């Protein structure tokens, strides 16, 4: 089965086609931040270049964040629309998991850190276990100080990856010690690990209908706004 992966949770736009042979086609662009203008032509291009027609796609994989809401709404809406039109299921995967996956052979704590803007970050920690990675902390949202506090509490060598880690590199390095940073080209989740992880899930039929896919909100999305003042005004 072929899987189309759509990734727009950070500044990078990425899409890929993969299956049991691995990744067959990959598109990535970081500069520009024009998710809406980029994603559909990119999908069309990789399908054409890889000689894949849309009716061969058996599932759509999409990064559901946490990340940029301006980006995610483009990718998730595209995934939902394509899943509906093609009558295929969707495999939602978290951005923080996608950042950790390429580092799964690292023998230390992996901290994935996505820039949440306004000096906040989304983060999760992972540890190598037989056969893959285990998430040991998070996903959480907090200040850079919160992240540093969590790293210090762990008190072990760690590898930080993600656009949030690079943006706040100095603060993290000064505060947490014994921390190294992964390369810039690993700092944005990519559709390549997305289709690979999704393929494993597809074999177990771990998927949902497109209508069930929602972005990963880490700030209590169902919390009602405390509108005490507005009620008075109304």
């Amino acid at each position: 089965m072929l899987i189309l992966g759509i990734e727009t949770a950070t500044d990078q736009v990425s899409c890929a086609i993969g299956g049991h042979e691995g990744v067959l086609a990959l598109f990535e662009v970081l500069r520009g931040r024009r998710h809406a203008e980029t994603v559909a032509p990119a999908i069309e291009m990789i399908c054409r270049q890889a000689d894949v027609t849309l009716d061969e796609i058996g599932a759509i994989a999409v990064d559901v964040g946490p990340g940029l809401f301006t980006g995610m709404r483009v990718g998730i809406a595209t995934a939902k629309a394509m899943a509906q039109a093609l009558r295929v299921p969707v495999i939602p995967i978290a951005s923080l998991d996608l950042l950790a996956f390429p580092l799964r052979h690292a023998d230390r704590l992996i901290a994935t850190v996505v820039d949440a803007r306004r000096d906040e970050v989304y983060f999760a920690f992972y540890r190598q276990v037989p056969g893959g990675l285990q998430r040991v902390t998070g996903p959480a949202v907090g200040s850079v100080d919160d992240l540093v506090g969590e790293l210090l509490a762990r008190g072990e060598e760690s590898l930080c990856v993600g656009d949030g880690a690079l943006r706040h590199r100095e603060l993290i390095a000064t505060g947490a010690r014994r921390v190294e940073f992964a390369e810039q080209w690993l700092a944005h989740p990519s559709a390549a690990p997305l289709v690979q992880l999704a393929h494993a899930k597809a074999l177990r039929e771990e998927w949902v209908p497109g209508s069930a896919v929602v972005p990963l909100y880490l700030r209590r999305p169902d919390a009602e706004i405390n509108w005490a003042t507005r009620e008075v005004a109304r």
Partner: protein
Amino acid sequence: VITLLSSSPTDTKAVAAAVAAVVRPGDLILLVGEMGSGKTAFAQGFAAALGVIDPVTSPTFTLVHTYEGRYRVHHADVYRLERMAEVADLAIAELADDKDAVVLVEWGDVVAAGLGHDLLTVRLEPTEAERPEQRVITVSGAGDRWAERWPRVQAALAAWVG
């Protein structure tokens, strides 16, 4: 906290222009006050001072309006929203991260969690029934961005301090 007295919507626009003179890209300003208190008038004066030519209207039903001036001005209104997920979808923090942009959020005080530490809050309140156009405006800053600029903010607004 700076407390000012505005005599009319025109005066409120002048206060807004004075605030606009000290803003920097990345600033996020919360506009607080009941319906008709002058939040949109403030936004109009603010945008005009930044060279926005397009008419500035209330974004109550469209949620976010974006104007091009000396800086880009994103003008949001969260009044119609019920849940924090809807606020997240507006991506206010991302708008503030936009290069060369400043963000105004009407009714923003109720959703300040998640907008970071650096905020300027402008509160507009009617005074007495005999002077329906008069407003008390309180301006308060939070975070390092505003702390380092506070003397300039005070100087810019000195003319309205009672």
